[in-house]
């Protein structure tokens, strides 16, 4: 078709108007009169253009507009999943069974993840431990630790994994003496990997090194029973436990296992008013000593004497040969103890905390003679923890120092921090590879750092004890370019498979289908459960000592007789921090020490009496600095602040290990003093007791030591209700007796309770209505060991701000739950002779060997809450379920409620912890704050916060029940503190449910309310503390001449008064 058609846009176009064509070239036919538009001058002078004033006006407008636009709140996009993973429901937590093992502690855990982020650990119901330790709980933050390496490094600069692998493999191939240093490996698959690596490089030797060694127990067991293991101690079967410097409720060996088992025998009821007895011989005040029914202050050099004396006393009773005697100052008490031990044959347990094979042999001898081995000491179903061989490690250091070792791979352990000799020898090794997750003290001395992934990013399996197998599964993709140690070893060994398949094949070989139909089915079940318990565990066969035992014990006793202490003796112990691996963890740093209540520091513990004699500061006060003195151990001088510790044996000091890290990260660096240089290799083991310490008696400096509790005694107040077991047996209400009024005519009447005198409550209207639930909590002072695991659980669950040492010192910790620790005092208003004022001053001084009580205190959820009626804006109110609620966004921050709280549990946000640079702990960093619990509001500056009884958990439980059209079952909803408590001291539940555990606890004779007389009617209540330290003969003997046993019974009360009682 011909193209004759003509299309035109306008008449001018059609006409081909030349002017139009010319204009057509321009975008706009006519120039737009910008000038006229922009000219403010209305005279119509088109040529004048924009003048200066106009320019300024437009610029002003534009800048203002631009800045106003910029002032808008930055938009943070929440991007929904395009393809939502099946198992992730936003707002709903997923739990994965996994395991925690850091070389010191094994725990079977459930990892709580929200939107793919692991945020909290809970204990695995399948395991034997019904609680979770502070260290394990706090370790979730290690995942989000910004000090972690994000990539492999070579001489501190990034190197690609391929390149690093190639380089290292090439160097390893040339090496003739390769060493792998790890902490104790309890993973069968890791052992297989190490074996595979060794197959590839036959010169490889594996050396296990535990930061804190228990090797003497292993060696003694090898000697006595032919089994180089840590036995399983069965505290639940022991009616009498003697601990010689072993803090089994604090940090000794496998504490969560022990404390739970121990607590089972510490719950006397009206029906079964029996409980076990704990006797402690120790120098420092440990948690075990603080919980002991009897505590004998003993110098470390005397531990051996105590054990030998005990052995001989038992031998005397049993008619067996005695050992070379060592004289203990507590000979009479020990003689009495021996009688009780023999009476409780097979139901007692003697343990010792010294890493000294001579002492451990005597312990074995005692336990064998008492029939405990095979009963409470199970060598057959032993633990697999702590297999580090001290002598082997010393040999390694010697080898390294001589330059014989030409390649070393270090994993888990940080020996350059814990062992100075190792640090000195390490540079002599040609190829140094660390797989630490950060450039720590050891890794920074290494050429290559091939960073290990966090355990939450890795696969693993564990065999922590005979018959116990556990799996660890990743719950998040690796956050950085890290690779787990086992995969690194496999890669270097040239293996093509990865560690995951290694584990699967190990399990297939070990278990097969294990009765689950197929290997896959079993694997899936094991992975789901996280734990496989083999039933039945291999039987108990070992109960007696080997043939050479007798001679060995004699030799040990002879050696012990030679132990002579110097002027001062030092005990190295662990605090919440453990061995120092988790030093960069702000939660642990800020968790108050159970005894001293000090955060963010280690220090020398010393008897306050002796401190006063030496002229050192004993005043605990926020602006009062502590004296710093110099001590010298093994020729190593250390300057450490001294902190008063009532109950400390005279001329002994304590120093916590795990501090003084220099390359832990921003939180843990240079906190406290490194005590490891004081550890000495002697008698074939690393000794954590130094019986010849030089202590400078002069204060050389002053330093701030931050503590959360500056007052130590009860001041005669009826805050702790306690009784002896004998009193309890007579009257289960012992300690809870009502007060009596003596009338004019001499008659006595029972004092009315505060509730009976209530002006408002009438029989018809007893109180507020609780139509649905009435949440209550019981805290058993008898089960509570004071460990503080509940405090950490609360901190993790409730996004509680970490505030740092300086703020702690000012009394501004944010903990919703605290554990008050009180020492008994020798004085009272009734017995004191210094006049009222003088008596009060005396009552502030703790006894020389005080009895100690722990009392967890959180918001008591008063039903007549003094905080609620003083808030001007109704920011704190009461729920119909009995909860005292805090409405953060209504709070104006007058702090009136905190002042009026008799329990002082309300915490004020002094700063904006989430944005203030000073508080770079868990809430400031973009990575760190990923650990926050999305179910709990992060509080802003200027508002009050406090325990909510984990209302988010209550709500979750109620909703779950509602969806299933039922009532919540008792025990279904657990608060975080309750979840963490391995001794079951915390019971939470609905008081409207007549069958609930908490209702029963409330009706118990031991129940009492704290500060009952104020009639604030708390929903939280306590159970009296019962001490098993009366009615025994041996204690009476301790205070009276021998041969007066007939009178002992009569003196019991007097003896009782000296150990116990503040009230």
């Amino acid at each position, binding site marked *: 078709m011909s193209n004759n058609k003509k299309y035109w846009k306008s008449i001018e176009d059609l006409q081909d108007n030349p002017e139009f064509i010319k204009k057509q070239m321009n975008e706009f036919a006519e120039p737009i009169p910008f000038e006229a538009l922009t000219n403010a001058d209305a005279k119509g002078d088109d040529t004048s253009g924009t003048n200066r004033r106009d320019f300024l006006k437009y610029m002003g407008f534009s800048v203002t507009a631009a800045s106003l636009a910029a002032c808008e709140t930055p938009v943070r996009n929440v991007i929904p999943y395009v393809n939502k993973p099946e198992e992730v429901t936003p707002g709903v937590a997923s739990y994965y069974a996994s395991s925690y093992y850091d070389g010191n502690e094994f725990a079977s855990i459930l990892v709580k993840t929200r939107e793919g982020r692991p945020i909290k650990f809970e204990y695995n119901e399948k395991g034997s431990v019904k609680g979770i330790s502070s260290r394990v709980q706090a370790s979730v933050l290690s995942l989000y630790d910004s000090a972690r390496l994000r990539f492999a490094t070579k001489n501190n600069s990034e190197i690609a994994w391929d390149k690093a692998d190639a380089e290292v493999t090439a160097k390893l191939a040339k090496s003739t003496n390769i060493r792998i240093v790890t902490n104790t490996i309890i993973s069968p698959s890791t052992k297989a990997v190490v074996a595979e690596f060794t197959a590839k490089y036959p010169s490889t030797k594996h050396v296990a090194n535990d930061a804190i060694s228990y090797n003497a127990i292993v060696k003694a067991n090898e000697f006595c029973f032919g089994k180089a293991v840590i036995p399983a101690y069965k505290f639940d079967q022991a009616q009498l436990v003697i601990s010689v410097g072993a803090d089994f409720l604090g940090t000794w060996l496998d504490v969560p296992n022990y404390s739970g088992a121990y607590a089972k025998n510490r719950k006397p009821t009206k029906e079964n008013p029996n409980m076990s007895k704990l006797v402690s011989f120790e120098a420092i005040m440990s948690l075990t000593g603080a919980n002991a029914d009897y505590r004998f202050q003993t110098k470390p050099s005397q531990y051996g004497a105590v054990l030998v004396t005990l052995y001989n006393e038992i031998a005397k009773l049993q008619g067996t040969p005695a050992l070379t005697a060592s004289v203990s100052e507590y000979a009479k008490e020990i003689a009495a103890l021996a009688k009780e031990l023999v009476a409780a044959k097979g139901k007692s347990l003697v343990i010792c905390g010294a890493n000294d094979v001579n002492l451990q042999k005597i312990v074995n001898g005692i336990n064998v003679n008492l029939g405990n081995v095979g009963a409470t000491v199970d060598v057959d179903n032993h633990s697999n923890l702590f297999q580090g061989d001290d002598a082997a490690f010393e040999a390694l250091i010697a080898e390294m120092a001589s330059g014989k070792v030409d390649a070393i791979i270090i994993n888990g352990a940080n020996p350059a921090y814990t062992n100075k000799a190792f640090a000195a020898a390490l540079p002599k090794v040609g190829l140094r590879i660390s797989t630490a997750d950060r450039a720590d003290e050891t890794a920074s001395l290494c050429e290559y750092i091939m960073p290990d992934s966090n355990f939450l990013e890795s696969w693993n399996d564990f065999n922590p004890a005979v018959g116990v197998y556990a799996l660890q599964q990743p719950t998040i993709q690796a956050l950085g370019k890290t690779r787990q140690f086992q995969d690194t070893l496999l890669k270097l060994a040239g293996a093509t498979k990865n560690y995951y398949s290694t584990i699967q094949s190990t399990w297939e070989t070990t278990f097969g289908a294990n009765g689950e139909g197929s290997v896959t089915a079993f694997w899936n079940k094991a992975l789901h459960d996280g734990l496989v318990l083999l039933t039945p565990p291999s039987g108990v066969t070992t109960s007696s000592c080997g043939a050479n035992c007798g001679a060995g014990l004699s030799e040990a006793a002879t050696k012990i007789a030679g132990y002579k202490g110097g002027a001062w003796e030092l005990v190295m112990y662990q605090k919440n921090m453990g061995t120092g691996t988790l030093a960069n963890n702000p939660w642990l740093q800020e968790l108050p020490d159970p005894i001293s209540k000090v955060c963010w520091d280690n220090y020398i513990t010393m008897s306050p009496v002796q401190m006063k004699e030496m002229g050192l500061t004993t005043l605990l006060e926020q602006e009062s600095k502590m004296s710093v003195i110099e001590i010298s151990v093994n020729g190593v001088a250390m300057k450490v602040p001294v902190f008063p510790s009532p109950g400390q044996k005279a001329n002994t000091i304590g120093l916590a290990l795990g501090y003084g890290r220099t390359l832990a990260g921003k939180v843990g660096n240079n906190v406290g003093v490194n005590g490891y240089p004081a550890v000495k290799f002697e008698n074939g083991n690393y000794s954590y007791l130094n019986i010849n310490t030089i202590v400078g008696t002069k204060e050389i400096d002053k330093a701030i030591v931050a503590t959360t509790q500056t007052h130590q005694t*009860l001041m005669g107040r009826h805050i702790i209700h306690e009784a002896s077991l004998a009193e309890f047996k007579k009257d289960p209400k012992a300690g809870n007796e009502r007060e009596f009024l003596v009338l004019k005519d001499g008659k006595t009447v029972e004092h009315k309770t505060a509730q009976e005198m209530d002006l408002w409550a009438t029989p018809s209207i007893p109180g507020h209505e609780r139509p649905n639930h009435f949440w209550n909590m019981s805290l058993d002072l008898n089960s509570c060991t004071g460990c503080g695991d509940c405090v950490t659980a609360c901190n993790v669950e409730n996004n509680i701000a970490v505030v740092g040492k300086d703020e702690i010192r000012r009394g501004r910790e944010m903990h919703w739950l605290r554990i008050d620790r009180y020492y008994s005092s020798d004085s009272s208003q009734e017995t004191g002779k210094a006049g009222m004022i003088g008596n009060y001053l005396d009552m502030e001084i703790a006894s020389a060997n005080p009895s100690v009580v722990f009392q967890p205190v959180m918001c008591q959820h008063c039903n007549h809450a003094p905080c609620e009626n003083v*808030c*001007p*804006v109704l920011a704190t109110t009461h729920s119909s379920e009995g909860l005292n609620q805090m409405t953060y966004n209504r709070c104006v921050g007058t702090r*009136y409620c905190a*002042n009026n709280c008799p329990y002082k549990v309300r915490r*004020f946000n002094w700063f904006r912890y989430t944005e203030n640079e000073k508080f770079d702990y868990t809430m400031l960093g973009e990575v760190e704050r990923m650990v926050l619990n999305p179910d709990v509001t992060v509080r802003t500056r200027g508002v009050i916060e406090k325990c909510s009884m984990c209302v988010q958990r209550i709500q979750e439980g109620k909703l779950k029940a509602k969806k299933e059209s039922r009532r919540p079952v008792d025990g279904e909803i657990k608060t975080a503190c309750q979840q963490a408590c391995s001794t079951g001291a915390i019971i939470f539940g609905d008081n409207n449910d007549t069958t609930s555990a908490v209702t029963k606890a409330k009706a118990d004779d031991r129940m009492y309310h704290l*500060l009952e007389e104020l009639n604030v009617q708390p929903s939280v209540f306590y159970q009296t503390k019962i001490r098993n330290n009366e009615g025994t003969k041996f204690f009476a003997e301790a205070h009276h001449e021998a041969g007066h046993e007939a009178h002992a019974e009569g003196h019991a009360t007097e003896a009782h008064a000296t150990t116990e009682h503040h009230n």
Partner: protein
Amino acid sequence: MSHYESPLRKPLILQDKTLHDITEDICRPIEQKPTKLWYAAFTVAAVCLAWWIACVSYTLGTGLGTWGTNKTIGWAWDITNFVWWVGIGHAGTLISAVLLLFRQKWRLSINRSAEAMTIFAVICAASFIVSHMGRPWVAYWPLPLPNQFGSLWVNFNSALVWDVFAISTYFSVSLVFWYTGLIPDFAVLRDRAIAKNLAPWRKSFYSTVSFGWMGTAKNWQRFEEVSLVLAGLSTPLVLSVHTIVSMDFATSIIPGWHTTIFPPYFVAGAIFSGFAMVQTLLIITRKILNLEAYITIYHIDMMNRVIMITGSIVGCAYITEFFIAWYSGVEYESYCFVNRATGAYWWAYWSMMTCNVFSPQIFWSKKARTSVALTFVVSIFVNIGMWFERYVIIVSSLHRDFLPSSWSMHHPTFTEVGIFIGSLGLFFVLFLLFAKFFPVIAMSELKTIVKSSSTQAKKHQKEHGELASSH
């Protein structure tokens, strides 16, 4: 204007001032340039105010962590200062309202300054209420305002809410009362500014603030009526404000706070401290502004009597508290008071006792009462003592309450001290501005008590033996 002359009483105004003298004496400092002394004082006060602004800004910007308060001691210098300032304010109201109702004419020389002091003291007090809040930007929430938050109301059970009502009522009534009194005096200044053709701002300023006062009989009648009504309104406030402030403590359960004696004890203490502050201020003012003829030894004597009596009432209250602490048998309360006198804060307690109870006893002697220097010293003592009283009540009660585990100490920080000293700066800046631009003595009212005509007549009679002819 009454010319009634009491045959018994001495004149309240000395030096035979005529009505015109009064106007001149009181207007002179306002119309002249300020003295060097005024400038010096103002500079010092302004520097303190700047410090206050800096410290308050730092607190508002960073948080209350900049103070020394902690988990146990939630209130310390903040509420101490608040109660101290509110207490100081009381004398003004007492002088203007209660003494008006009791027809105590001597009050007329001092009521204006005392009322000004009330207003400024309450401003200072209010500043502490706001700055002690965790979130001062929502400081209006304790007011029962209709709001968008749902059915959210204030907690009428809380003494703090009563406090908000009490202080705001007190402030508004005092302000109105004070201002009403100022109107005729402003009119005088206006008329003088016009007549003398002073600076234009004076004319317009005083014209505006004098609300067109004409000095007619109707004006005066209404003035008198309003004054009487406001006096009637203010009188219960003298008692109520500090009663309610005391309830902040009395309605709590903290030992040392939970005391029914607090309302009368606090009111007496407030009047005590208020009069001491009036003394301090007026002794300076009469010197600087040459007002010795108006603020006489008689005034000082009268106020010293009030100080002595209220000081003794307060002393009785202190002793009563101790008795009840012992008599009640409540161990927490017993300990609280033993600790108060002998514990860590013994120095604060004994400073309080020395300043408040012992030092005013010197006024049993007339010689001491009429000594200006001694009065000044004692008034400063009382101011210090009353500050310590509040510090002792607040901090020593909180620092060792029920559970010994939470016992603590309070150490003020630089910021906290700065805000207190700065609040003195705020107060004195306001007071100096007042002294410069406002008539410090209620001249119109004062003229009702001059005896100049009769005195002159008497003098004339004495000299000439006859009554003066009117000329």
